[in-house]
C-alpha cells in the first residue's frame, strides 16, 4: 500500500457564464496516490455537498481517456502533466504530497465558461456542421472492402481521425487557435476516397466557420501537439493549408 497523500486544489470557481470568478483553495487529506484527478474532485465534491456548499462543476463522461468530454488546465498545462492523456487519466501519484494543484478552465473567447471548470465547446460542433461530414447513401452498410484503400493512407487518415474534439489544442495555444482540431478533421476526410466529393468546399467552409467562431490564427508554436491526448501531429495543420491552397486553385 502506498502512503496516503494530502493535496491542495486551487480551483477556478465561477457561478455562471456572466458572473465574476475567482480561485478558491481546498485541502483534501488522506487520499490514495492511485486515485485519478477526477476522483479527487469527486471526493472534494462529496465534502462540499455535506457542508452545503456548491460542488465544483467539471465535465467528464467515459473516464477512460477516449471520449474527449473532460479537460481543464492542470498547473498550466491542458489535461495535466502526463502527456498523451486526458485529464481523467491523470493520477495523484504523478503529483507531490502536499502540492498545490491549480485547476483552471480552458480559456478562449470561443469557449465561454459556463460554470467553474465547464466551458461551452459547441463552436467545434458548428465547425463540424459546416463541412466535417461525408455524403453517404442510407441503407445497409456497404461491404467493408468494397473501396480498396492503401494501408499507408488508411493509417495516415486514422492518425487524424483519433481526434476526440476535447479542445485542449485551443486551450494550450498561445493564440487560442483551433487549427489542430480543424486540420485533423479535414485531413481525416481528405485522405480517404469517401471524403472526395466535398473535399474542396469542406476545407473552405470549415476554415471560414473556425474564423467566425473567434478562434485565433495558428502561429506554429506547436503547443497543441504537445498537449493533445491523442498525440495528433501539426503535420495535419500543414496539410490543411495545402488543402486550402488546392481548394482556392480549383474554385
Amino acid at each position, binding site marked *: 500500500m502506498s502512503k496516503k497523500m494530502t493535496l491542495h486544489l486551487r480551483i477556478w470557481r465561477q457561478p455562471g457564464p456572466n458572473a465574476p470568478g475567482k480561485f478558491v483553495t481546498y485541502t483534501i487529506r488522506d487520499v490514495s496516490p492511485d486515485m485519478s484527478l477526477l476522483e479527487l474532485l469527486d471526493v472534494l465534491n462529496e465534502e462540499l455537498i455535506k457542508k452545503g456548499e456548491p460542488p465544483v462543476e467539471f465535465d467528464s463522461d467515459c473516464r477512460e481517456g477516449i471520449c474527449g468530454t473532460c479537460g481543464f488546465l492542470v498547473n*498550466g498545462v491542458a489535461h495535466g502533466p502526463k502527456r498523451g492523456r486526458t485529464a481523467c487519466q491523470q493520477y495523484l501519484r504523478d503529483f507531490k504530497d502536499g502540492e498545490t494543484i491549480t485547476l483552471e478552465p480552458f480559456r478562449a473567447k470561443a469557449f465561454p465558461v459556463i460554470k467553474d471548470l465547464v466551458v461551452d465547446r459547441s463552436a467545434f460542433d458548428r465547425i463540424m456542421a459546416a463541412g466535417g461530414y461525408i455524403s453517404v447513401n442510407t441503407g445497409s452498410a456497404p461491404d467493408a472492402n468494397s473501396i480498396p484503400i492503401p494501408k499507408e493512407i488508411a493509417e495516415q487518415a486514422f492518425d487524424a481521425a483519433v481526434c476526440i474534439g476535447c479542445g485542449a489544442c485551443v486551450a494550450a495555444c*498561445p493564440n487560442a487557435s483551433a487549427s489542430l482540431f480543424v486540420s485533423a478533421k479535414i485531413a481525416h476526410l481528405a485522405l480517404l476516397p469517401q471524403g472526395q466529393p466535398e473535399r474542396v468546399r469542406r476545407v473552405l467552409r470549415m476554415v471560414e466557420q473556425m474564423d467566425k467562431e473567434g478562434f485565433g490564427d495558428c*502561429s506554429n508554436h506547436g503547443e497543441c501537439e504537445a498537449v493533445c491526448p491523442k498525440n495528433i501531429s501539426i503535420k495535419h495543420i500543414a496539410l490543411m493549408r495545402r488543402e486550402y491552397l488546392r481548394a482556392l486553385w480549383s474554385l
Partner: protein
Amino acid sequence: MVFWPRSSIAKKFLNAVTGIGLALFVIVHLAENLLLLTGNPDDYNRWAHFLHSLGPLLTVLELGLAAFFLAHIWSALLVYWDKLKARPQGYRVYRSAGWTSRQTLSSQTMIYTGLTLLAFVIWHVVTFRFGPYYTVMVDGVEMRDLHRLVVEVFSDPINVALYVGVMVFLGFHLRHGFWSALQSLGAYHPRWTAVWYSGGVLVAIALAVGFIVIPIWVYLYL
C-alpha cells in the same frame, strides 16, 4: 467563402511569403555589406554606385521591398490582433508542456522582435539611404562615398551597441520565422521538417553574427 483578408490561413500565407522574401533580402544585404571587410573602400562604393546606376529599376526594387515589409507587418499585426481577441481572459498559471512543443522565447516574442526591427529599419534607412551625401572619385568616376558614412556612423560606440543589440533580435525573429514560414505554406515532411526546424537556429545565428561582425569590425579597424 471569404478568402481575404479574414481567412486565418490566408493571413499566414501572406506573412510566410513576405517573410521568406525579406529573409532572402537580408541574406543578399549581408553579402553586400561584407564588402566593407575587403580592405578597399572602393569595392563597397563601386557596388553602391552600381545599384544607383540601375535608376528606375532600383526604384522598383526599393518599392517592392517596401511593399514586402508593409504586407509582412500588416499580416503579422492582424494575427496579433486576433490573438488578443481570441483569449480576452488569460490564464493565471500557464506553461508550455515541453516535449514536441515548438513554443520558445523566439516564437513568443515575434511581435516584439518584429516591431523592434521595424523601428530599426526606419532608423537604418534614414541614416544611410537618406543620410549625408559624401562624394569620392573611383576609377575616374564621381560617386557617393557610402563607405565614409558607414565608418562615420560606426565610429560612435552607441550606434555599434544598438546595431549589435537589434541584430540579436533579428536572430530571435528568424529562429522561429524560418521554419514557421515553411509550415505556414503547408510544407511538411516527416524528415525534412525536423531538419529545417533545427536548421532555423543555424540560419538565425549565421545572419545575426554576420551583421554583428560588421559594425564591430568597422569600429575597431576602419
